[in-house]
């Protein structure tokens, strides 16, 4: 056991995977010589060689499309997009090929690959560097979509993703890369894809979130508990497949739900969660489901980020309204 940040935990996962499985290789812009723009792949090229940790030309569609060919050819590629806004040029490959080859060939060809995508704002970055497009990937049939929020989950989910027989879009919350630390086991372990994590149990209200927003939700839960509210917090961890059982059990218990995400509101993944609750446990609800999300705006630049990002206060306010209904 070592105390690690999310960035280091991901680095360990990749190191362990490269060590254990000769078919694993990493591809991406600047992943080798500089260890990636967020240093997640730091030192891995030195340890495993330039043939397995590959600095690619600046070509996102090519990175994903070539990784796809490698995967069909028996390799286990892990492709890195530098930022979520830079993953859009690769959409064609992801949506038209990566997610479909198993169905197109009725299981004859498969693409067991991972696409790592740092996502989310709050670091005052340039345009295109702060996107949260997880709903677009979640809307694409044939992909698994995973979003870790803790170092333990980051390592365990990444190893599970690398070991998965199907393509996994692995969203890494940029803001949490170095802000959360915890003890992480050595060696290979997996966190199953498709299981939510109940971060704290409570009786009065359920806060559902994932990825970067877990920090704000944790703050809101602590503030609400100080007021005597018993709060349950669910970190979904995996958007596809979604752990509906955990959501359902919690809603049946508390009857009140606030969903929190950083992505824009309209057709965000929160809408899917709200619809599932309506379909599966409407009669357990004591109040309407509320969403605290980013706005339907372009992610603002540094000086206006605070207007966009859901804050502890916004979440607490929404929770109070839900509790008062």
């Amino acid at each position, binding site marked *: 056991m070592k105390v690690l940040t999310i960035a280091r935990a991901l680095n360990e996962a990749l190191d362990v995977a490269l060590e254990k499985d000769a078919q694993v290789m990493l591809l991406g812009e600047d992943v080798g010589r500089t260890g990636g723009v967020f240093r997640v792949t730091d030192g891995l090229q030195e340890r495993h060689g330039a043939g397995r940790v590959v600095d690619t030309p600046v070509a996102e569609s090519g990175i994903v499309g070539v990784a796809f060919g490698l995967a069909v050819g028996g390799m286990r590629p892990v492709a890195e997009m530098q930022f979520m806004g830079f993953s859009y040029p690769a959409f064609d490959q992801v949506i038209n090929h990566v997610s479909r080859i198993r169905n197109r060939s009725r299981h004859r060809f498969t693409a067991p690959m991972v696409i790592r995508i740092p996502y989310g704002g709050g670091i005052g970055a340039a345009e295109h560097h702060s996107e949260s497009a997880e709903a677009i990937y979640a809307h694409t049939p044939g992909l698994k979509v995973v979003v870790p929020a803790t170092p333990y989950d980051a390592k365990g989910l990444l190893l599970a993703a690398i070991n998965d027989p*199907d393509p996994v879009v692995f969203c890494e919350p940029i803001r949490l890369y170095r802000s959360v630390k915890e003890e992480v086991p050595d060696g290979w372990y997996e966190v199953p894809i498709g299981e939510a994590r109940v971060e704290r149990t409570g009786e009065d209200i359920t806060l559902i979130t994932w990825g970067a927003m877990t920090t704000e939700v944790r703050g809101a839960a602590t503030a609400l508990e100080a007021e005597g509210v018993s709060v349950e917090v669910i970190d979904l961890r995996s958007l596809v497949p979604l752990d509906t059982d955990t959501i359902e059990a919690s809603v049946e218990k508390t009857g009140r739900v606030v969903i929190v995400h950083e992505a824009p509101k309209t057709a965000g993944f929160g809408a899917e969660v709200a619809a599932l609750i309506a379909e599966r446990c409407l009669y357990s609800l004591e109040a309407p489901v509320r969403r605290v999300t980013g706005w339907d705006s372009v992610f603002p630049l540094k000086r206006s980020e605070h207007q966009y990002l859901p804050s502890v206060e916004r979440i607490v306010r929404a929770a109070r309204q839900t509790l008062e209904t």
Partner: protein
Amino acid sequence: MRQRLTPSGGVEGDPPIDIQLTRRLYRAMVFARTYDRKGTALQKQGRLATYAPFEGQEAAQIGAAAGLQPNDWVVATYRDAALMWAQGYPWELLFAGRTGDERGGSPPEHVPVMPPSITVGGHMVHAVGLAWAEKLNGTGRIALTSFGDGATSEGDFHEAMNFAAVYDIGCIFFCQNNGYAISLPREMQTRSTSIAEKAIAYGMPGVQVDGNDLFAVYEAVHDAAERARAGGGPTLIEAVTYRIGPHTTSDDPKRYRSDDEVSEWKRRDPLERVRIYLSERGAWDEEWQATIEAEAAAEIDRAIELAENMPPLGPGEILDAMFETLPPHLERQRAELLENLT
């Protein structure tokens, strides 16, 4: 433009393949043409979905496959049935795909051919990845990706060529320049004098051959394949050919090209020049022609029967190949689907 077999059946230099192989490839071209004409006929009867004919491109496709080893990868398009078949893809599965059945995209385990790409250009990077995997695993296998002149304007053409060259990947970029991308003539697709010359910018060899010349295509692909296998990296081959038919059965080519142009290209028929060549060497006669045409008709008819007799996917099976194991949400959707079918 490199030419080895002229339209009148004359040979430049020594023929690159012997008479027996030439006869086999001629027979394959007859099979390909039979399949292709049947495809158009069946579409007109409403038995196939949209069909994209390749008549006129038989030498390019059969010649290219002949230049490969049987286990080399082929990553091709919806107009490449002859190329895919020549590398092992069964006719009945090519038909099955066109009847609207996903199982047409599932060749037998030993066949190193991907299901045809329907989007234009995106598949070229897949071939680079496949060839790279083979290189890493030291199998000696390479990949050939086939595409049209239109696809060279796609961004993935650039990304694939660039990746392959940077990493010395054993991938052959095989362009069948058939003159048109649906309606857009080759001259409006690119200001480059040839497509082959685009190779220079990527630091790889580019070769332009007469795509209706079986010998020239075979030789170019064979040489590129041997070079790739030896670690020499990628090659771009431009096979200059012509699509005699429409883009697909839903297109009227009279709107964008003249009958005279089509007639001119029919005089450069890729089968006819091989026939003359064989005939002049006593290796072709009417009787053999009748025999192989009958064999082709029988094999293609059998393939249609197999494809049409495949029962459709069973209830709920459209969900079964989304993942290796059906996740809970798809289990629920499957149950809902079944409920609604009864």
